């Protein structure tokens, strides 16, 4: 295998794709280059936008406590608006003449204030202000990353601990902060810390309903009108730690759900002004000791749940589950069992030191010898395309394009995240949108680029004679560039 091929694998299998800068230091030692990137993770930044200033944001990427205050104010404003709108419409509903006026207003008179439109506008203002800045910060980080291994890990773990903006305004506003606060700082640290940060974050507490879960025998449930919600407890066991065949029972789920009652989103002004976004509410906590996976956990309040999570983090089934997902993501849809075992062993031996686990992956011969059979997901593909052409995208178009390609940012179809299997993405529909998106890009990029040079540079170490020939025979520059970007060498990793 040539140095170019190994560097190309570092950039595609482990990274975000090659840029006009080329392979750089990865040519001489791709494994060292990957490890070095873990030591110097990129910082996210964005500029405060006018709409954010208007909403009195302290900075473009505020922490979740500040966002929780924004969400609270926002919900209040919406409630007031709704009441006002309801009042305003009441007389209209009773008068046929007024109905006629309304129809006229809808056909395009923009001068009259329309409480309904006002409300519709306002419900989008906060999430738009947030998503714009979060998207911009991600695009910049993707474009700047030398290889992009760190960013790929962030994407992997954000998808492992998935939340979806579909859930509603709070998660929509918090999704970016969740990735910044709970995922990003911990992807190279201990799995325990990552797990705790993810589960306790207000985005996760809201997304999987634990914020609403109340211990059946807790003080908060004295009138017996509320109760337990098992959603988060189940997904922690099934998706985040042990895995679906990890050896837990329904009784474990229920017990664990009781253990983490009282865990929730900070609401009191004091907690919020202290910069807290997680809050333990002892009044909602189910009293008593509980048995999870055969072990009895005494009731020590908030700590009870922490101790269960700590034990789950070092459970052998968790090591196996995480190792399997990592190998499936980076190496092959059908992960080689021997490699999975080695990762799981290192996970256990180091008490979940994730960088140590990645090191096994980077050093494994399988990671370099395996056929490039993984199919870049839409997000991976789009980022690789942006990097290859050196053309960043406005955040709005990033969201639109990813949505069109079937992988909207922070919006997976369920808590199990987006699939990691080629069969899910390499479909006629998927290929169809990929063709359209790529051609639009290529058409704009074609002016100054010779497709033959582009192919040799961006597919260095990978290019086949068939692709070389196909590109050289292309009828237009745009078509030639499209063939490079749609070649198996570029779409697979």
């Amino acid at each position, binding site marked *: 295998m040539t140095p170019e091929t190994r560097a190309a694998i570092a950039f595609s299998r482990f990274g975000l794709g090659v840029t006009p800068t080329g392979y750089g230091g990865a040519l001489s030692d791709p494994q060292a280059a990957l490890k070095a990137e873990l030591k110097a993770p990129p910082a996210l930044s964005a500029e405060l936008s006018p709409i954010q200033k208007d909403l009195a944001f302290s900075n473009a990427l505020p922490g979740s406590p500040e966002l929780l205050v924004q969400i609270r104010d926002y919900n209040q404003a919406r409630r007031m608006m709704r009441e006002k709108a309801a009042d305003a419409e009441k007389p209209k509903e009773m008068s046929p003449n007024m109905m006629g006026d309304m129809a006229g207003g809808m056909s395009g008179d923009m001068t009259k204030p329309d409480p309904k439109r006002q409300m519709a506008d306002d419900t989008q203002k906060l999430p738009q202000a947030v998503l714009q800045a979060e998207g911009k910060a991600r695009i910049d980080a993707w474009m700047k990353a030398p290889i992009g291994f760190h960013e790929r890990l962030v994407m992997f773990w954000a998808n492992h601990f998935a939340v979806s903006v579909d859930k509603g305004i709070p998660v929509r506003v918090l999704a970016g902060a969740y990735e910044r606060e709970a995922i990003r700082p911990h992807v190279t640290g201990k799995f325990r810390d990552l797990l705790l940060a993810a589960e306790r974050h207000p985005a996760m507490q809201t997304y999987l309903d634990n914020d609403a879960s109340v211990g059946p025998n807790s003080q908060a449930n004295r009138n017996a009108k509320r109760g337990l919600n098992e959603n988060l407890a189940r997904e922690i066991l099934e998706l985040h730690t042990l895995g679906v065949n990890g050896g837990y029972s329904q009784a474990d789920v229920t017990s664990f759900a009781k253990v983490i009652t009282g865990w929730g989103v900070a609401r009191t002004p004091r907690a919020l002004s202290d910069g807290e976004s997680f809050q333990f509410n002892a009044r909602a906590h189910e009293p008593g000791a509980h048995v999870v996976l055969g072990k009895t956990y005494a009731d020590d309040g908030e700590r009870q749940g922490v101790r269960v999570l700590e034990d789950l983090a070092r459970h052998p089934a968790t090591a196996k589950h995480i190792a399997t997902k990592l190998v499936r993501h980076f190496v092959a849809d059908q992960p080689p069992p021997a490699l999975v075992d080695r990762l799981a062993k290192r996970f256990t031996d180091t008490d979940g030191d994730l960088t140590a686990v990645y090191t096994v992956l980077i050093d494994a011969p399988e990671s370099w010898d395996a056929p490039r059979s993984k199919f870049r997901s839409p997000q991976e593909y789009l980022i690789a395309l942006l990097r290859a052409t050196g053309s960043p995208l406005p955040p709005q178009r990033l969201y639109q394009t990813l949505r069109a390609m079937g992988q909207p940012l922070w919006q997976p179809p369920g808590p199990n995240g987006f699939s990691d299997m080629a069969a899910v993405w*390499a479909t*006629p529909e998927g290929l169809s949108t990929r*063709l359209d998106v790529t*051609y*639009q890009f290529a058409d704009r990029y074609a*002016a*100054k680029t010779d497709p033959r040079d582009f192919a040799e540079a961006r597919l260095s170490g990978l290019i*086949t004679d068939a692709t070389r020939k*196909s590109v050289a025979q292309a009828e237009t520059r745009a078509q030639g560039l499209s063939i490079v970007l749609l070649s198996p060498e570029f779409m697979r990793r």
Partner: protein
Amino acid sequence: MKQNRRHFLVTTTGLFASAFLPSTAFAAGRDPRLIVIILRGAMDGLAAVPPVGDPDFAALRPPVFDGDPLKLDGFFGLNPAMPNLARMYQAKQATIVHASATPYRNRSHFDGQDVLESGHEKPGFADSGWLNRLLTTLGTSDKLDAAQLKATKGLSVGTLTPLVIRGEAPLLGWAPSQLKDADADLPPRLLRLYGETDPALMQVLHEGIETGKIASGMKDMGGGGGGQTRAMLDMAKGAAALMARDDGPRVAAMAFDGWDTHTAEPRRLTQLLGGLDAALAALESGLGAKWNDTVVLVATEFGRTARFNGTQGSDHGQATAAFLAGGAVKGARVVADWPGVKASALYEGRDLQPTTDLRAVVMGVARDHLGADVRRLQTDVFPGAIGVKPVDGLIA
């Protein structure tokens, strides 16, 4: 691409009137318009304008098109898919240039298009095209003077500004409101590539094409489908609507893709030439009275092999045909120093031999239609073309 030079317009007249020249600025008299159409992919000149009177032609190219060639001057015929161009020819408003080529003698589309559009002798990266440099060299004494040009700007039609009109002279941009269709010729090419190196992906793409989820020229037996024909018509109509205005652009460029007919050429070229013919007719009718002062130049990067290949198509070649249409053209002529199609007369034994320098044709039009200075044409517009003499008598 320098985006700041491109302004997308909407076709509601009031909105962009300020970008145009006040109509009082024009004196009576000649007010020339020039439209350049680049055919990307290498149009087969022998199929478009067959030399039916050449005794060696019948053996070289057995008839494959539906219908007989349309009559031009007896020696040359016109492909039956182009009745409008034939009509313009008979009305002395169209001239054919044959066996012409740029100075480029290799067979790469990109490099060929580069030379054709940049006006340089060799491929390589030129920032500007000859049409744009022509605009910057025109002076106040010319028929299309600098003040008019400055006020009206050149018009780039389509989502991508063709190289031929890129450069320092300011441009307006206009594209049909619909997004450009993904290139219908792309899926068949990818299918061939995947077939060689990625059978699994080929299966997926094949299914996409079969079920109609992926629009492909494959569906109508080999590319050059209806999408391209419609795009040509839309672009021509849009350009004509803008240029028909008294204060509209005087010079425009657009590019039509899809002419790389390696397979199924009879069917594909019938569609493509038909689309081009309809586009010329749309320019004629859309320009109205302005057509009388218009020259449309249609050119392609190179021609195709004199003989058909084994897949009912032709491969990359050398000389080909170019078209001049418009009321300002001295028409009803075929301009050609015909080299013949005997095997011994072919370039490298396979292609039509170039005998007319396409740059000389452009120079003739630029000098006689726009009043451009020949010296500047030979140096600034076409660098290194000092020995190239403008073709006389192309303009009425």
